C-alpha cells in the first residue's frame, strides 16, 4: 500500500516536471547542483577538506548535496547513483579505493552528468569517464622536501662530518602518497652526493608507528642528521623518540615533514620541526571553479594540481592563528 502510494506520488511529480520544462535540467533556477560523495571523517585533514567544500559551495552559490561514505565503496556508489537519479549538474567525489568505479561512472556518463575526482585518483582505462582530477601532486611534495634539504645542506649536517645521513619514515607501504613522496625526495637529493638515505622504514602514517621506528633508528645509527617523514603525525612521533634519547629535535636532528596539519605547524613554530611541505585539503574553491566551468561547457584541464605552499618556522608562527585543521 505504502509502496503504491509512493510510486503514484513519484509518477505525479514526474509528470509535473515534464509539463513544467520538458527537459532533464534540474537547474531551472540557474543554480548549479553538485553531488559530493566524501570518503568519511577519518582525520583532521579530511574534516578540513569537507568544511572547505561546504563553505566554498555556499560562497559560490552552488547547491551542494553531501554524503559521507564512512570509508566504504558501496556507500559511495550508492550515493553517486542517487545523485544520478536526482539529475544533479555535476558529481564530485574522493574515491575510497582506486578500482571498481567503471560501472557507476558509465551510468553517470550515460546520464550526461560530468564527474570530477578530488584528492584521490581512480584506476580506469577509460579516462572519458571523468572530466578532471583535482588533487595534490605527491611527487612534487617529495621534491619540495628534497629541495629544501639540498638548499640547506650545510646547516643540516648537524655533526659536521661532511655526510648528511637521512632516515626516512615512510607512509603506509604501497599507498600512493608513500610511493610518490619517496620518489620525489630521492630524485632531488641524488643531485647532492653528500646526502644519503641511510635507513627507511614504514611508520604507517601514525604517531605511534613513527615513534617506534625512530626509536630503533636512534639506537642502530648514532649519526642521524635529518629525519624525513611522509606526514606530520610520524614526524611528531619521531620528535618524542628523539626527546627520549636526550637529543633536541630540530637542533640535534633536523626534521622535514609533509602535510601541515595544526599539530605539525605548532611543532614547526616551536622549532621542533624544521620544514613542512603543505598538502592542502582546502580544494573547495578550485572545485567550485571547475564545476562552474564544466556546467558552462568550457574546457578544463584533465589534471588540476592543488595550490600548495611550504612552511618554515617563521611562516608557521604567522599562519598558525588561522589554521583550521
Amino acid at each position, binding site marked *: 500500500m505504502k509502496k503504491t502510494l509512493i510510486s503514484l506520488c513519484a509518477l505525479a511529480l514526474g509528470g509535473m516536471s515534464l509539463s513544467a520544462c520538458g527537459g532533464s535540467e534540474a537547474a531551472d533556477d540557474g543554480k548549479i547542483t553538485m553531488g559530493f560523495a566524501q570518503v568519511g571523517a577519518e*582525520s583532521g585533514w579530511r574534516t578540513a577538506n569537507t568544511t572547505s567544500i561546504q563553505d566554498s559551495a555556499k560562497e559560490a552559490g552552488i547547491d551542494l548535496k553531501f554524503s559521507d561514505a564512512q570509508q566504504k565503496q558501496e556507500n559511495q556508489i550508492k550515493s553517486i547513483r542517487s545523485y544520478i537519479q536526482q539529475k544533479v549538474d555535476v558529481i564530485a567525489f574522493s574515491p575510497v579505493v582506486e578500482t571498481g568505479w567503471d560501472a557507476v561512472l558509465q551510468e553517470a556518463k550515460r546520464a550526461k552528468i560530468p564527474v570530477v575526482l578530488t584528492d584521490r585518483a581512480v584506476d580506469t582505462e577509460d579516462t572519458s569517464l571523468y572530466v578532471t582530477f583535482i588533487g595534490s601532486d605527491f611527487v612534487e611534495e617529495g621534491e619540495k622536501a628534497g629541495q629544501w634539504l639540498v638548499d640547506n645542506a650545510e646547516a643540516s649536517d648537524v655533526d659536521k662530518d661532511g655526510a648528511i645521513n637521512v632516515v626516512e619514515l615512510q607512509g603506509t607501504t604501497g599507498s600512493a602518497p608513500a610511493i610518490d613522496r619517496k620518489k620525489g625526495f630521492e630524485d632531488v637529493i641524488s643531485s647532492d652526493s653528500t646526502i644519503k638515505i641511510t635507513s627507511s*622504514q614504514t611508520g604507517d602514517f601514525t*604517531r605511534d608507528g613513527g615513534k617506534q621506528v625512530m626509536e630503533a633508528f636512534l639506537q642502530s645509527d648514532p649519526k642521524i642528521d635529518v629525519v624525513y617523514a611522509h606526514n606530520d603525525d610520524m614526524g611528531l612521533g619521531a620528535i618524542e623518540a628523539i626527546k627520549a634519547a636526550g637529543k633536541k629535535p630540530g637542533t640535534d636532528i633536523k626534521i622535514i615533514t609533509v602535510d601541515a596539519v595544526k599539530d605539525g605547524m605548532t611543532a614547526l613554530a616551536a622549532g621542533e620541526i624544521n620544514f613542512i611541505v603543505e598538502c592542502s585539503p582546502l580544494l573547495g574553491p578550485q572545485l567550485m571553479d571547475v564545476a562552474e566551468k564544466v556546467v558552462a561547457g568550457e574546457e578544463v584541464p584533465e589534471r588540476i594540481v592543488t595550490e600548495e605552499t611550504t612552511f618554515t618556522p617563521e611562516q608557521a608562527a604567522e599562519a598558525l592563528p588561522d589554521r583550521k585543521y
Partner: protein
Amino acid sequence: MPEILRSGRAIGARMMAHRLFWPLAALGALLVVNLIATPTFFNVRIQDGHLFGSLVDIVRNGAPVLLVAIGMTLVIATRGIDLSVGAVAAIAGAVACVYIVESPADGAAGAAVIAVSMALAVCVALGLWNGFLVAVVGIQPIIATLVLMVAGRGIAMLVTGGQITTVNNDAFAALASGHLLTLPVAALIALGVFAATQIVVRRTALGLLIESVGINPEASRLAGVRSRTIIWTVYVFAALCAGTAGLIIAANTHSVNANSLGLWIELDAILAVVIGGTSLAGGRFSLTGTLVGAMLIATLTRTIPNIGIPAEANYLFKALVVVIVCLLQSPKARAVLQRRREPVPTSRGEVVA
C-alpha cells in the same frame, strides 16, 4: 665418558621437548641477529636518570601487546576468543584523551586520574557486554566479540569526533614514557598485571576453574562450577587489560587516533598466546608462555627497522618467523626432529610434552 654424554643428551632432549623451548630459542636467535646487525644492541645506559637502550625499548613497546595477551590467554582458556580488544583499546584511549582535553585543568594530574578511571570503567561495561553475549545469550565468542570489534571503532570515532585528539598532560604521558626507579612505567604496569594474574590463577582455584570450563563447560556446570560467572569474569578482565593497553598507547604519543589505535592488536595478542603454547581449543593455558610470546613479537617488531628490512618485505619477514616458530612447536615437527637427532624413546617425549 659415554655416560655423561648420554645424560647430557637426555637433558638436551628434555629441554627441546619443553613447550617453551622453541619460542625461547627463536627469541634468542632474533636477539643474536640484532646483535650482529648492531653490535651495541645490548647496551643499556642511564639517560636523564632512567635506563635507555634497545632492550628497554622492546620491553616498553611490548607492554600493550603483553597486556592484551594476558587477558586473551584467560579468554582462550575458556574456549573463547576476544576479537574486540583493539576496538576496546581505542575506546579507552578516546574516552581518556577527550576527557582530559575538555576538563578545565587539562594539565593537572587529577584530570589524568579521573580520565584513566573513567576509561577503565567504560572498559568494564564493554567487557560485561561481551560476557553477556557469550555467557548468557550463548553466541559463539568469535561472532559475539566481532560485534564490538566493528562497532567499537565507530564508538571511538564518535567520542573523538573523528579527529586526532592531542593532550598535554604530563601525568597521563607518564603512563607510557614515565620512569619509576629508572624503569619504564609501561613495562612495570604490564609486568605487574602479569605477576598479579599469575598469582591469582595459580594460588587460588580460579585457574583450575577456568581450565575446567574450557575443557568441558557442561560437565563443569554439572560439577558445580559457575561457568557463566567464570566466562563473564574473563571477558571483563580481557576488556580491562585491553583498556590499559589502549591508555598506554595513547599516552605514548599524547594523542588518540580512533582509526589506528590498537589496530590489529587482537591478532598480535592471539599470536602471542598461541606461540606461548596455549591451545585455541581451550583448557590448559600458560601465562609464562604468553609473556615469552609477547616479548618475541615485540623483539620481531624492533628487528625489522634495526636490521634494515625493506618496508615492502617486512610483513613477509614477520610471517616467516612466525611460521617457523609455529612449525617447530607442532608435535609432528618435534617428533621428526627428535627422531633425527636422538633416538630417545618417544613415550618419554610425549610425557614431557
